């Protein structure tokens, strides 16, 4: 009776597989997870992710073999509600939050999740970045009222101790979008944060970042956010998140975090400059969605009603490409991918863009109760 399942190998794109399995209701089996590694099997952060998934669903079945190299997942129904989760500090909260962003609108009850752990690290998109880019993106799909990501406590890399509140309403259907013009950047905003270091660090970051960005646009404002006491987590660190907002409401973001305590330290000036350059790179890539949220946008497009959705993206990231393949596996949906090369000598708007077009799968949130 149960629908057919998928089999994969290796732990890469672990989240994608579990998320898509949950949304499509198909079982998934992942074999050979780090089977050749010195330390085989699932890592703690993956186990923590599975636990989180278990918390927000009802009736999921998860089986892991003795060594942790084989995972079987039979998804249940997305339940939502109030969830509190201690995220493993190996990965930042962003790792978990990215998954929640994808699942949250399709739950039975609106999600109110408190995630504890590392809020900013060098691997994953930080909470600030997601707050600045993913939330406005969701608004475009009709998930507008009540989406909130709030950093109540900030915790840096090795120690953690941060806390993030994420709330999201539920939707029955997602509306299709057609966004092909990102528009011109009208302002740049940012947050320079520092915890358990001198508050001056943030100011130094701001100055250095501005020095680069001022060449393009005067409307730049970078907030400094210095958290103290109980709100400052367990490890010292600082970082910068920059967001460029366009006239059409596209948000492109870049971020940089100081290396965790114990590793070779980084000067705040360098960090600021690097981050600004990263933003420029992001602008160069362009598109209506920044490179971190490509997969989120594509997912919502794909889960929309049976209408054509279009979106202009920058070059596809490897993660997105794999995501597209997984989407085809789970939902049998292919995107029409058209490359739009920049017009020579006419417009200097960065690199090639990709126009992604798809017909939604007509997904409806079957968890949501009607009464």
């Amino acid at each position, binding site marked *: 009776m*149960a629908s057919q399942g998928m089999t994969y190998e290796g732990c890469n794109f672990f989240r994608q597989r579990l998320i898509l399995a949950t949304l*499509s209701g198909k079982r998934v089996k992942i074999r050979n997870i780090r089977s050749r590694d010195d330390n085989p099997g699932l890592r703690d952060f993956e186990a923590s992710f599975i636990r989180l998934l278990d918390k927000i669903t*009802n009736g999921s079945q998860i089986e892991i073999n003795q060594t942790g190299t084989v995972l079987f997942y039979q998804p249940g129904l997305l339940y939502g509600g109030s969830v509190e989760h201690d995220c493993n500090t190996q990965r930042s909260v962003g790792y978990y939050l990215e998954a929640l962003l994808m699942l949250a609108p399709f739950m039975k009850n609106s999600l109110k999740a408190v995630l504890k752990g590392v809020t900013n690290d060098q*691997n994953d998109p930080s909470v600030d970045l997601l707050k600045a880019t993913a939330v406005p993106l969701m608004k475009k799909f009709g998930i507008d009222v009540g989406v909130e990501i709030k950093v109540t406590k900030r915790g840096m890399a090795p120690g953690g101790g941060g806390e993030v509140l994420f709330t999201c309403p539920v939707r029955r259907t997602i509306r299709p979008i057609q966004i092909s013009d990102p528009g011109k950047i009208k302002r740049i905003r940012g947050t320079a944060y520092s915890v358990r270091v001198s508050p001056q660090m943030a100011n130094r970051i701001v100055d250095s970042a501005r020095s680069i960005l001022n060449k*393009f646009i005067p409307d730049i404002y970078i907030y400094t956010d210095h958290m103290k006491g109980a709100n400052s987590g367990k490890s010292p660190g600082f970082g910068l998140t920059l967001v460029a907002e366009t006239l059409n409401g596209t948000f492109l973001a870049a971020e940089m975090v100081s290396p965790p305590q114990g590793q070779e330290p980084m000067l705040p000036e360098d960090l600021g400059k690097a981050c600004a*350059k990263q933003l420029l790179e992001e602008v160069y890539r362009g598109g209506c969605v920044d490179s971190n949220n490509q997969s989120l946008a594509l997912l919502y497009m794909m889960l929309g009603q049976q209408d054509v959705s279009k979106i202009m993206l920058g070059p596809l990231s490897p*993660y997105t490409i794999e995501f597209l393949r997984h989407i085809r596996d789970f939902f049998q949906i292919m995107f029409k991918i058209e490359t739009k090369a920049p017009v020579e000598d006419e417009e200097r708007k960065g690199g*090639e863009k990709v126009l992604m077009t798809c017909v939604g*799968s007509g997904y409806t949130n079957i968890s949501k109760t009607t009464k």
Partner: protein
Amino acid sequence: MEGKERKEQKKHQHKHSGPKAQKKNKKKQSGQEPEQDARKRNPKAFAVQSAVRMARTFHRTQDIKTRKHHIPLVDRAPLEPPPIVVVVVGPPKVGKSTLIRCLVKNYTRQKLGDICGPVTIVSGKKRRLTFIECPNDINSMIDVAKVADLVLMLIDASFGFEMETFEFLNICQVHGFPRIMGVLTHLDSFKNSKALNKTKKRLKHRFWTEVYQGAKLFYLSGMVYGEYQLREVKNLGRFISVMKFRQLVWQTSHPYVLADRMEDLTNPEDVRQDPKCDRTVCLYGYLRGTFLKNKGQVHIPGVGDFGVGDVSFLPDPCPLPATQKKRALNEKERMIYAPMAGVGGVVYDKDAVYIDMPGGHAKQLQEEMRPTTELVQSLIGTHATLDAKMAASKVSLFTDREALTQEEVEVSGAKQGPTESQVWDPEAKRQRRKAIFAGQDEEKDDEDEGEDSDDDDGEEEEDEDEEEEEEDEDSEEEEEEEEEEGDKNESGPPLVKKSEDVEKEEVKEADVPSVKRQKVEEVKRKAEKEVVAEVPAFADSDDELEKSEAEEESGEEESEDEEEQVKGKVPADSGHCSEEEGAEEEEEDDDDEEEEEGESGDEEEDEDSEMEEETSNAEVPQKKAKGPKVTTQQHEEEEEEEEEELSYDTEGALRWKQGLAQKAAEAFLRRQQATPNLRKLVYGTVAEEDGELEEEEVGGLFKVSRPEKGKRLRADAMDCSRFELDASHDWDQEEMLASIKDCFVTGKWEGDKDAATLLKEDDELYGDFEDLETGEVHQGESGAAGAEGGSDEDDDGNRDEDEEEKPQVKFDDQEIQKNKRLEKKRKMKERFNSAYDDGDGDATYFDDLKDEMKKQADLNRAEFENVDDETRVQYEGFRPGMYVRMEIPSLPCEFVTNFDPHYPIILGSLGGSEGNVGYVQMRLKKHRWHGKILKTRDPLIVSMGWRRFQTIPLYYIEDHNGRQRLLKYTPEHMHCGATIWGPITPQGTGFLAVQSVAGTKAGFRIAATGVVLDLDKSVTIVKKLKLIGYPYKIFKNTSFIQGMFNTVLEVAKFEGASIRTVSGIKGQIKKALRTPAGAFRASFEDRLLMSDIVFLRSWYPVTVPQLYNPVTSMLLPPGEKDSWAGMRTLGQLKFDTGVRNKPNKDSLYKQQQAKGKTPRDLVRPAVIREPHERQVAQLLHALGTVYGTKRKVARTEMRAKHKDFLKQKEQQEEEKQKRLKEEKKKLYRIMGQKEGKKLKSSLKGRAKDD
């Protein structure tokens, strides 16, 4: 659908001559009068008389307006819609087959014999129809209702409504209401026109209450040569062709196929070895509903859930006419396609086309009027053409084993040809007559007439009854049902007769196994034959691919992709990767390499020398020139890597790791930029990254077998959504910074959005100042405008001025220009105003929404319009209207062996997680016509979504606090909740329930209807549980209670719970007592009595039994398909096995002995006296009373005297006693003294003596 059908209305022709035209002309000439509207001419008549009334009328109009609104939906109807499904429903012997035959004949001028499976015809320039006949079986009725667009509901007017009709209407209501058209037949049996009219009216009104007021009811008055009257059929046909349909929610969200052709593809050898092995079956049909994705899951009602092996689309076997100009269809375009009935011109297969050549239609019609000749003809025709075709298409079909197949062909030919012609022709005539519906009708008509006349009488009586009862509708309904039942009973004998007929037929077996059955076999045989021919073709279905490959080699990259898609190969990467493909890819690469060695050589050098300096600008054109050559890049990269590798070796073992991800990203990005076709990268082939990394890995670190290792690394890489920086971009360089300059508002704008240009345009539109300043300032302005690239007009102006050189002098020209400009401006303003008014005056939220939907619909249509079908299918899925072939592996063998084309086969696609099972909560109401209430835990057959299944529901009702309390039975006239274990179905889906699908039972079979509310993986239904205890020790307000629990632990769990006595004293459990086990201390609001009973009300969660048993009625042998029986209810089970509960003796009813009456005492009447006697008696009584009183008084006196006397006497006695006592005392004293003296003296005397 509808939009396309809309014809352009003929326009009103204005009169050009005659009095009317003259009058109009006069009016026109007379002046402005007619232009003024009435409102202006006579303002008083339109003045507001009453504000209240105005408000009311306004409200009313708004109400009416909004009531018309439906939620606007995106119109997803395809441009070329699938044939409309017309279902002909009705009880048996009502004329369903005849009607279909007549309609088909009406549309296509072709006669059909047996209606076997769906019949698709082209009915008009833009419309096709598929007719299905619904067998009289509740399973089929349910299935058919789910796919119907239009229902022709046949009603035997001579008999009236039958239960099936109402059942079907209710089924329709639950599963979305398709268009329903009633058709009254057997109207010729009425001899009396008055009775006929009355019946028509009665039936019409009843029909209206069921469907809607004014629903169309068609009358087919009589039969002519076994067919309905031509004119009436034609009218009905017209009605069908112009009918509009609405979208039903379930259908528009679920693709489905009504299979009109079935083929068994199982390897015959497998079947020979194990006749019961699972079959691979191909089902064909038009795709309906919505887009279908390949490799999905389908549910076949009556069979089960299956994964689809493969879906492919075929050319339309029954296409719409190509050109649309003509008024009517010509003979050739009147196509008919009914492969199950053996009719249809062209039958397509995946790689073959079968052409059925039945000869000219006209000729055929003349030759044979009998219906089934077409079949035989077509069969013979098919045989011939097949042969010819086989000979012709030998190459494609039989590549490897020619001799064998030749034999097969011969054998099959030899088998088929003679047997058919010999066996069928002579006998068939007789047979056909008998078994065919029409023929039977003819014969039976005589009988029927007999019946009918009987029926008529009954009917008339009924009518009379009806008239009497017409006031009360509801009661009428019930009455009618009863009557119908009664009628059924009456019509017992004829039924028996029919069954006898059937028996007779069976006895004659050899010649009369009913034509329907024979055809099944025929079709089957045909299918098998086809399979035999086709299997080899399928086995090496590569040839097509080869062909395509050959084509594609010459073609472009894109088509290569398609080919890969066609092959169904999964693009390789991490988990996805397949080895062969990689190899293949490599081969391709090699080819490419060879072609481009020269170029690549150059590039290698380039790459080696400069990494950073190579900007994307430089790169892109290169790649463009090369076209699809991804591979060169890879080779470059590989080369690169190798070189780098060397350096790593020298520098340190671990350094390679640092830049790895970055480099990969870098390379990747470059490749991505390079690929003209990203689609290939994403979906097409192996991402070449693997290759590189493999090599590195091997060279750098381990000596492990290559491919595995590489894959592992990729597969076990870090799962991160970050997109690393492109190292080739150095953001310190001005060049780089300049490349994104226009991304900011400070940069250059596009022509149409540039602020300056926009301002200019605005000036043109609204700039009045321009006129004022024409003279002096004009120069400067236009100059500025020219510099900014102004509009044509301005340019014109400039040019003019330049030419003339003296604007002041040539004033006239200026004036003309000015006037022109003014005119233009005025026009524009008018246009704007009208647009503004029209747009804004009416534009409501609703209109906006509608506009939005329309825009979306247009986009949907336009987006993939020009893409070829092969590619389009991959993006959109198969779109409705396509003729698809669905291959389903592992169908149970019974599906094939017991196949009966009369039963509709539906392939309903299941979306998302609809293939899973879970708890489904529903709102349910017992149908008011169903006889009995339903019991919790009694199995019920539910039809929900595509499925029919048996399950065990638990009924519950929700209390005010949200608690779901279990009910033992469904409430009588109320909704209640029901929870089942069943397939996940979206909320809002309707369902119906029946208790059994086997046979026909008396009464209304639909037990309940409802809607799905919620889906979950757990349930929260509770059952009330009262725990009872008894006090064994009572203090003031505290009591010790025992018997409620068994252990201390149990008590501990309930500490603090409130309890109550039967008499209503409330209390609370305080603490467990050590002994006796389970006893506890409780305090109450008042003192208990020992006789009190204490109870604790609690809620016990119940579990829903996990029974999900799909109804597999299609797998039953033909003829028994309506006899599916699943789990029995407890009651049935007991009844069937004869088990009876042993009842409690006390509850049994005993014979009550009436107690005998005890006679009362006799009552004597009082003595009646004469007045005199009465007086005497009164006197005597009075005397007696006086005497009595006297005596009483005397007695009291005497008693008092006697008392006194007794007192006196007592006193005297007392005194006497006293005296006597005194005396005695004296005497005794004296005696005592004497005694003492005597003793003294005696003592003295002795002493003296001593």
